């Protein structure tokens, strides 16, 4: 069995208005305890994952690089000793450009973090301010240069489009600047307004308009064509990569392979069961420190749940779903209207289809049992 490990680091330099992740600014004094708890949780969980080959490790957050390279190195060593991590496993850490310099980057690479995923978001200072990001475009350029100088050969840049004040032209410039930095991987996300965030409340009050979905659709299509022209392959709704640099860890989620989540609020999945850790860091810490697995909840997927997940995840990664999975000819109208294409018996969404994936999934699976 091949599996992935996700480690959640809930610390951030500052909270961004749009973010609804389990992330906190100002909890820095918890870091030493948190690291010890991760190591303890790994050893508590390990026996259940005997025999699983760990093909990927992914540190997400929060901002994992708010912890020192030494601490992160210690963490990875502990994972390697507790689990059967493949020698060639993809090991990624997310990073905030402002937390990186050549010294810390060398430390991370040295510790075995061979893939770097950086939150660039935009190269337009006005858009960064609108997103309440503290870093500047210049610090992204500097961080990428430092990563290259250190020897990083697998770098991802995260982008967000559709923030208030961002024009299509500004988005094109952001894409140009991104391409100019030649990362191996690009993730571009349409800004989503989450109700339980400061930005969500601002929008609900009407102080800032919600993103215009039509403008975001234009931006998506711009990203598709500019990244394609620059040699990136589109392999998931929001992800592009140079050939061979697709993110193995994330592909594991989408292909419904097992994953173990460590840290506050992290989700795990295996054998049609999904469970998630206690979300508040303090409670998570107290539970692990008692020597208990910090599970906060779980669910069992019945066949119709599993079917629905299979359909929408496969459609997301453009691997396609066999036409024979659906009743009659209900895919026909989407083939006709150009939202789906038929790739040798597999239904694959087109660019327009990807933008309307929810509608496609609903229409294709309406009243369907797993077959």
């Amino acid at each position, binding site marked *: 069995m091949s599996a992935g490990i*996700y480690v959640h680091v809930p610390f951030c330099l500052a909270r961004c208005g749009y973010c609804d992740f389990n992330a906190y600014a100002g909890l820095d004094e918890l870091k030493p305890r948190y690291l010890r708890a991760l190591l303890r949780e790994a050893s508590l969980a390990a026996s259940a994952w005997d025999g699983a080959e760990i093909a990927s490790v992914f540190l997400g957050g929060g901002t994992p690089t708010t912890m020192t390279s030494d601490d992160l190195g210690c963490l990875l060593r502990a994972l390697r000793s507790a689990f059967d991590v493949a020698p060639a496993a993809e090991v990624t850490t997310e990073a905030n450009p402002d937390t990186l310099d050549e010294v810390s980057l060398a430390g991370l690479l040295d510790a075995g973090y061979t893939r770097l995923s950086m939150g660039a978001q935009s190269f337009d200072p006005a858009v960064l301010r609108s997103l309440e990001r503290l870093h500047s475009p210049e610090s992204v350029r500097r961080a990428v240069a430092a990563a290259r100088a250190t020897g990083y050969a697998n770098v991802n840049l995260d982008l967000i489009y559709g923030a208030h004040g961002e024009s299509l032209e500004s988005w094109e410039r952001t894409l140009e600047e991104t391409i100019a930095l030649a990362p191996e991987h690009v993730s571009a*996300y*349409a*800004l*989503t307004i989450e109700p339980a965030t400061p930005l969500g409340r601002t929008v609900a009050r009407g102080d800032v308009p919600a993103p215009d*979905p*039509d403008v*975001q*659709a234009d931006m*998506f299509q711009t990203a598709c064509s500019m990244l394609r022209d620059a040699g990136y392959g589109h392999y998931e*709704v*929001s992800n592009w990569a140079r050939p061979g640099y697709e993110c193995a860890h*994330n592909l594991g*989620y*989408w292909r419904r392979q097992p*994953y173990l*989540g460590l840290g506050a*609020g*992290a*989700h*795990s*999945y295996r054998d049609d069961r*999904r469970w*998630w850790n206690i979300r508040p860091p303090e409670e998570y810490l107290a539970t692990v420190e008692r020597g208990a697995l910090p599970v906060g909840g779980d*669910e069992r997927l019945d066949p119709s*749940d599993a079917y*629905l*997940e299979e359909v*929408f*995840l496969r459609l*997301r990664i453009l691997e396609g779903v066999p036409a024979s999975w659906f009743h009659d000819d209900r895919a026909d109208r989407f083939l006709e*209207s150009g*939202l789906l294409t038929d790739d040798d018996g597999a239904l694959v969404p087109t660019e*327009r289809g*990807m*933008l*309307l*994936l*929810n*509608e496609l*999934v*609903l229409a294709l*699976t*309406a009243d369907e049992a797993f077959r």
Partner: protein
Amino acid sequence: MRPYHGGAVSTDSSHIRNFCIVAHIDHGKSTLADRLLEVTHTVADRDMRAQYLDKMDLERERGITIKAQSVRLLHEGFELNLIDTPGHVDFTYEVSRSLAACEGAVLLVDAAQGLEAQTLANYHLARDAGLMIVPALNKIDLPAAEPEQRTKELASLLDCDPSEILHISAKSGDGVDALLAAVIERVPPPVGDRAKPLQALIFDSMFDAYRGVITYVRVQEGVLPSKARIRMFATRVESDAEETGVNAPEPTPVPELGPGEVGYLVTGLKDVHQAKVGDTITLAGKQGAHEPLPGYREPKPMVWSGLFPADGSDYADLRDALDRLKLSDAALHFEPETSKALGFGFRCGFLGLLHMDIVKERLEREFDLELIATAPNVEFHVLRGGETTIVHNPAEMPPGGDHDEVEEPVVFATIITPADYLGAVLGLCQERRGELVDMSYLTPERVEVHYVLPMAEIVFDFFDQLKSGTRGYASLDYEPWGYQKADLVRVDVLLHGEPVDAFSTIVHREKAYPYGKRMVERLKELIPRQLFDVAVQAAIGSKVIARETVKAKRKDVLAKCYGGDITRKRKLLETQKKGKARMRRVGRVDVPQEAFIQALRVDDASTAKGKK
């Protein structure tokens, strides 16, 4: 029930006075009725509550009387039967039957407000019914009261001596004794012959879950015994009546109701349609009367609307609920209707918009149903090839003017307005296709205007427009006035080329464009974007008169879907799936229930107020 202590049954009716109170809304009718109950000790002080005679919750909430009631007051050896009258133009016929049960009417006028449209309309009804009018100015203790001016106005209307007009305060009780004395002195006792065959007028009929149909009657001739085989003239139904009694004010059995008396009869019937307001009761067999009392009319719906369950599976429940309501509401009509857009439902006929509102509210409140009501319309006559078709559903109207002539019902409207607002009133009536009949100054400041107006123009939001155009000072009353030829067309609304029958309506040709434009604009906002452009069109026949486009949806996808998002995402999809299943399909277009409800909502201000 308490035993009756009203004294021995008299063979003579000289001690009886049957009267009602007629007034414009808010001029104090219910307060006066309360005070009469108190002054005559009919209701013990400890049992007294405001608006004692208004029984239904809805009546108290809306401050209007929907059903008539009668109550017996005993005062200084006299038996005074106070017959309440419904207070809304929807119920003009019911008012006329209540008046027919009386010999006199207290015409109550607010000393501050003066004469209003309903004052006049009710006065004319009462006078035409031959009633003795006892005029009274109410609220004379109000600082804004102008008793002298109002007395002059009222005396000139009634052509009487100002000294005949009583001044009272129903609130404080001032002058109420004098009013009672005037009723006794001026209202003639009823005349009737015990020996003649029974003729009893039904002026109200209601359904009681335990006792079946109870009618309120006024005996004109003969005697109505407590237990008897009775017959209804209009419906030809016979039944064994179970009990006669009077409201004093609680129901109190009496051995019989003699000529001139007013009371209730437990008929032994189970369906109010067998005992209709205005019908005459007599005894079954040879001893029965040969002729009914004059003035009976079949209750006739004026306003029609389709009622559909929001959830199609509630159809049977809606049918049962309507059946139950019909037991107690003789004016309610309904027949099955099938709509392509809304499924199975009923086309219902109502006396007016208030009646429609009440029925809808009762169905939702008492039977827990969620309903979609189509836009109300009046009943049209469509003439085609020498044949007349009665149309009370826009779907039955031939599309695109394929008819020789259409007639619509009109009303005779009485409007009283301060002279300052005359221009606004005339403007509104012109805009509503009215024809001015006449106009007269009641005083230099107040004008009475008569118009013939299409009923379709008046039943919906006319009153609100009138009120807002006159700062609330104008008053309105109207009565049906037959049919008139008009240039009417059916406007259809199409979604993606598919007509939505629930949105079709019949309007005057000149109003077709504004109506169509308003509907398509409204629907543009209400119909969610689909996977393709949806044309929203309004059309007369095949001619499109207004169009909007709901642009195709371009983006509906979650940006991020990683390990921690998958469960949430799946649940979101399941919720969306349920939402889709609740939508109605029109051709290829998914339309949410809410869009139908919102699009068909009569502008909020125009209904529900009820009070006129």
